[in-house]
C-alpha cells in the first residue's frame, strides 16, 4: 500500500460514517420514528468511500434510491441528512425530498433518485458541463446491476463514450435488482462487459475491498481528468440489510447462507484488519472513529427530531425559480 496514511484513514472514516449513519437511520425507520421508506447502504460502504476519496466538492455525482451512503461519503452533514429523513425544515431539502431525493448541490451531489437509472443521463450532462467549462472536474454516476437494464443507462453510456466525457459509470452490483437475482435479469455475469459495446474501458472490482475500489476508481477518474473519456467500473458488492429497511417486508428471496457468506467479507472489518496489520492505525484508534461517529449521529438525530416541520407556505415554494 503506497497510499498515504491520511488517505487510508479518510477512507476508513467515510466508511464508518456511512455504516453508523445507516444503522441509526434503519432503527429510526423500523421504529417508525421517521416517515417513508429507506434503502440502506450497509455492506456497500467500500464503494462510495473508495470512489469519493478521489473526488473534490467540484466533482459531481448522481446517486440512486440507495443514496445516503453516497452523500455521507461525499461529505454530507449528518444533521441536515437526518433532518431530511424526518421531513423537517432544517433538512437538506427543507423536508421536501426525503431519503429518495436527498442531495447537496454544494458538494456536487446531484441527488439521490427515486427513478432507477435516472442518474447516468444527468451525470453525463454534468460531465458534459465539466468538459465544456474545461474545469478538470469529473462526474460519477452510481447505479445498480438492476439499473443497468434501463435504456437511460445505455443512452448515457453511448453519449459519454462518443463525446469522451469525463464520466465514470459506477455500477454497484449487489447481485439483485430489488428482489430479482442478477441471473434472472440479465444474461451477462459482468455488467462491465457492456463497456465494450460503447467503446469505453470496463473493469470489475471487488466492491468489498475499499482499497481496490479506491485504486480502480482513482485510475478511471485520472483518465477522465486527462480527457480520455469515460470508464465503466463494476463493483461487486452486497447489501447486508434488505432492499427496503433492515428486515424488509419479510419475504425471503436470498438464503441466510448467502447473506452470512457475504457478511464475512464486511468491508469495514476487511479494511480495519489491513490497517491494523500494516500498522496504519491501532484497533483502539479505529474503534474511536466508530464511537465519535455514533455520538455525532445521535446528536444529529436529536437535532433533527427537535427541528420544526416546514411551514405550510413551503408547499408551493420552489416549484419554480423566481427572480429575487
Amino acid at each position: 500500500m503506497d497510499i498515504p496514511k491520511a488517505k487510508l484513514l479518510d477512507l476508513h472514516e467515510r466508511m464508518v460514517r456511512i455504516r453508523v449513519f445507516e444503522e441509526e437511520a434503519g432503527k429510526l425507520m423500523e421504529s417508525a420514528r421517521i416517515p417513508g421508506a429507506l434503502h440502506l447502504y450497509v455492506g456497500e460502504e467500500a464503494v462510495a468511500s473508495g470512489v469519493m476519496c478521489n473526488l473534490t466538492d467540484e466533482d459531481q455525482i448522481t446517486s440512486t434510491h440507495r443514496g445516503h451512503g453516497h452523500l455521507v461519503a461525499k461529505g454530507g452533514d449528518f444533521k441536515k441528512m437526518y433532518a431530511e429523513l424526518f421531513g423537517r425544515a432544517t433538512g437538506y431539502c427543507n423536508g421536501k425530498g426525503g431519503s429518495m431525493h436527498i442531495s447537496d448541490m454544494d458538494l456536487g451531489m446531484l441527488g439521490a433518485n427515486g427513478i432507477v437509472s435516472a442518474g447516468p443521463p444527468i451525470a453525463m450532462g454534468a460531465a458534459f458541463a465539466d468538459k465544456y467549462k474545461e474545469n478538470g472536474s469529473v462526474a460519477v454516476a452510481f447505479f445498480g446491476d438492476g439499473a443497468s437494464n434501463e435504456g437511460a443507462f445505455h443512452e448515457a453510456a453511448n453519449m459519454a463514450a462518443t463525446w469522451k466525457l469525463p464520466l465514470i459509470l459506477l455500477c454497484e452490483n449487489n447481485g439483485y435488482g430489488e428482489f430479482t437475482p442478477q441471473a434472472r435479469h440479465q444474461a451477462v455475469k459482468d455488467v462491465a462487459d457492456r463497456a465494450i459495446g460503447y467503446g469505453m474501458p470496463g473493469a470489475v472490482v471487488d466492491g468489498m475491498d475499499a482499497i481496490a475500489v479506491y485504486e480502480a476508481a482513482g485510475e478511471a477518474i485520472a483518465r477522465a481528468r486527462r480527457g480520455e473519456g469515460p470508464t465503466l467500473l463494476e463493483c461487486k458488492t452486497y447489501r447486508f440489510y434488505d432492499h427496503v429497511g433492515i428486515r424488509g417486508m419479510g419475504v425471503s428471496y436470498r438464503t441466510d447462507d448467502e447473506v452470512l457468506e457475504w457478511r464475512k467479507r464486511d468491508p469495514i472489518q476487511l479494511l480495519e484488519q489491513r490497517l491494523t496489520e500494516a500498522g496504519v492505525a491501532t484497533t483502539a484508534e479505529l474503534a474511536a472513529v466508530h464511537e465519535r461517529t455514533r455520538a455525532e449521529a445521535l446528536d444529529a438525530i436529536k437535532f433533527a427530531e427537535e427541528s420544526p416541520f416546514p411551514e405550510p407556505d413551503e408547499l408551493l415554494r420552489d416549484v419554480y425559480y423566481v427572480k429575487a
Partner: protein
Amino acid sequence: MSTATGTRTIPYIAACTEALRQLLREDPDVFLAGEDVAGYGSVFGYTRGLLKEFGPKRVFDTPISEEGIVGLGVGSAACGLRPIIDIMFMDFIGECMDEIVNQMAKMRYMFGGKAKLPVTVCTMAGAGINLAAQHSQSLESWLCHVPGLKVVMPATAYDAKGLLIAAVHDDNPVFVIFNKRMLGVMGEVPEEMYEVPLGQARIARAGTNFTIVATGRMLPEAMEAADTLASGGLDVEVIDPRTLQPFDTETVVNSVKKTHRALVVHEAVRFGGLGAEIAAQLQEEAFDYLDAPIGRVGAPFSPVPFSPALEKLYVPDAAKITAEVQRIVGKAG
C-alpha cells in the same frame, strides 16, 4: 346484498389477486409480467401466490426496463396472447410513454384495423404515504388524452376485481390504475368472476342537491364529505366514474341536470387534470341547468412533497371537499 351467495368482505388487494388468479385460470393465453411480480409477489403484495400456482411461464419477473416491458405486452398481444403487464408505480410511465402512446395506442388504427391488442397494464397511483415526488403521482390525464387507450380506476374492492376482469377480457389496451392507499380497504366481493362494464359510472350515493364526481382514492373522501354535508342539510349525490376513458358523460350530466351544482375531485394535480375535462363537458352539456360553476378539487400545482407536514396539505381530503362544496353552495346562494 351482503348475503348473496359466495360474496365475502375482503380487502381491495385480495380482490385484485383473486381477479388475476381467475383470469390466469380461465385463459392459457393470459400471462402476468412485471418487475418483481413473481418471486416477490409485487412490492405491493397484490400478485403473491400466483407464481406458485401458475409457474414461471405464466407469471414472471422482468428486468427493470419499462419500455421493454410494455413492448413485451404490445408485441405478444399483437401475436395473440393476452398479457397483463405491471408497471410498479404510475410515476414510472414516463419511461414507457412512447411505447404506450405511439405503439400500443395507435397500432390498430395505423394498421387500418388489422391489429388487435388485448393488453392490460396495471399500475399504482396516489400519494399520502410519504413516498415523495417520484412515487406518488396520479398521471391518468395523460393517458385519457390518448385515443386508443382505455383507462379505469377502481375505487372499491368490488370494482377492483370487476374492472380488472373486464379490462383483461377487453380486446383493447386498458390501463388499470390502482391506488396504494386503497389496498387495505374492505369491500364485498363475489367469489365468481364478473365484469364491471367499461365505460359505466356508478352512483355511489344517490342525492338531490349537489353532485360530487370523485375518482379512485377520492371516492371515500367524497363519501365522507357527503355525510358531513348531509348533516348540514345538503343531499349530495356521489358519482364514481370508474372508467375514465371512455368517460360516462351521460350519467354525470343526468345527475347535474337534477342537482344543478357539481364538484369534481381527483388526486391528480388540478391544472390539466381529468377534472378539467369533466367540468368542461358538464358546462357544455348542462349549461342551462347549472346554478353555480362546476368546482374542481385536485392537488395543488407542485410536485408531491415528502414531509408529512406538507403532504397532508397536498392530498385532497374530505375536509377540503366539504369546504369547496360549501363555498360553491354559498356562491350559488
